């Protein structure tokens, strides 16, 4: 199929609000947002704790987390596959080839990004605020709420980086989700499959939705952080 015809067919597919097409988009968005939310709930306090705590091996932990930001998705997917497979330690959960496994996989990929960037933001803020907060008796973990709140605009960027990583990821969700039509098929896995089958309109349509979605979320977050920064300083 010609490129122009493929684009035209993709647009037609998007406009028709095809249930199969919308199902793929909906699942991908739900999985990605769930993973980012989970990573935020775990990663923001964890990153802040690592920033403030002093313990043996801290440097190694920081290097490890920084390195995990570049964890290849297929390796993460493979590891999780082994854990979730019937004979694996988490096999009894029965998550393999379900959206839950896909959320877990994306959380594993997003978490190091959130933890590493949170640690950096909180550590920098702590250097600036330390004397004031100590003067008020807010030392150690009691300082965390203040530091996370005052770092909120930088931390929003960390979460966006995590969203970008999760939404663009294909290897891990393919391995643990199985790319089952109507159940675990996301935009990225569908794009890979349809491209290999030669169904370019569907692949292109999904690609365009993915781009627009990423652009929209980034634009909203950027606008919110600019407005917030203007009022917070």
């Amino acid at each position, binding site marked *: 199929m010609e490129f122009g015809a493929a684009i035209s067919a993709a647009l037609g597919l998007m406009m028709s609000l095809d249930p199969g097409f919308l199902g793929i988009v909906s699942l991908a968005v739900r999985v990605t947002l769930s993973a980012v939310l989970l990573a935020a709930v775990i990663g923001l306090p964890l990153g802040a704790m690592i920033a403030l705590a002093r313990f043996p091996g801290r440097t190694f932990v920081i290097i490890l987390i920084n390195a995990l930001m570049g964890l290849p998705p297929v390796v993460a997917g493979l590891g999780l596959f082994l854990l979730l497979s019937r004979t694996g330690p988490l096999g009894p959960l029965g998550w393999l080839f379900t959206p839950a496994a896909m959320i877990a996989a994306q959380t594993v990929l997003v978490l190091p990004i959130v933890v590493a960037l949170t640690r950096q933001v909180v550590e920098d803020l702590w250097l600036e605020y330390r004397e004031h907060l100590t003067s008020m008796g807010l030392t150690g973990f009691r300082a965390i709420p203040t530091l996370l709140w005052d770092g909120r605009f930088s931390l929003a960027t960390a979460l966006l980086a995590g969203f970008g990583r999760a939404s663009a990821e294909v290897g891990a969700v393919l391995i643990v989700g199985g790319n089952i039509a109507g159940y675990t098929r996301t935009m990225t896995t569908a794009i890979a499959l349809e491209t290999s089958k030669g169904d370019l309109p569907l692949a292109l349509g999904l690609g365009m939705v993915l781009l627009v979605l990423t652009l929209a979320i980034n634009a909203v977050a950027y606008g919110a952080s600019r407005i917030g920064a203007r009022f*917070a300083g």
Partner: protein
Amino acid sequence: MAMRDTASILPLSVEGLGYAVAGKTLLEDITFTLPRGGLTAVLGANGSGKSLLLRLCHGLITPTRGSLHWALEEGRRAGRQRHAMVFQRPIMLRRSARANLDHPLAALGLDRAARQARIAEALERFGLENLAEQPARLLSGGEQQRLALARAWTLTPEVIFLDEPCSQLDPGATRQIEAMLSEFDRDGMTLMMATHDLAQARRLARNVLFLNGGRLIEEASAETFFNKPRTDEARAFLTGNLLW
């Protein structure tokens, strides 16, 4: 706002205080008593240990030698509301001026109504009403220092440690801050202020601690120190000969 009626944490007795880091002694054998009321100026050249002494007294740093004894155990650590500190560069949270005032009060567990009442009083007293919703970090240096003083004041501390609060301000802003410090003094607060501005110390101080090279050279009333200094170092400092 009335001063607290509870028992005083003063006097503060400092005995043989010393602080060393990486084998270098920065303060050595400091002994003095901080009495109740008035402003005690901590004078000395740059690097004499003025700021460090304030931080040790406030509890931000633990001394490596000697001891500090507050009259009440409550005074022992920072963050007990009984003594506060204002820094040379005001540390402003990334929030509005109002939220900066609210933060320490919320940390103390005050309810919303009590916090709002105290903040309204502080905004009025320190002339910050029109700046209340402005981002604190975008205020001018003088406004930030006024806000820092207001923030310390809202805690109704008995003692405020001030680390060269006017060193980065123009004469107009300095005059405003000095007027506020005089009001604190009249209200019965005890102030301990590091400065190398002799004119300011003459205007405000009741007592003087003079440091040189990490040692306390002279402890005297302001009148005695400025008119009849006992030591050669103090005389040299007062005549503008820097000590190293």
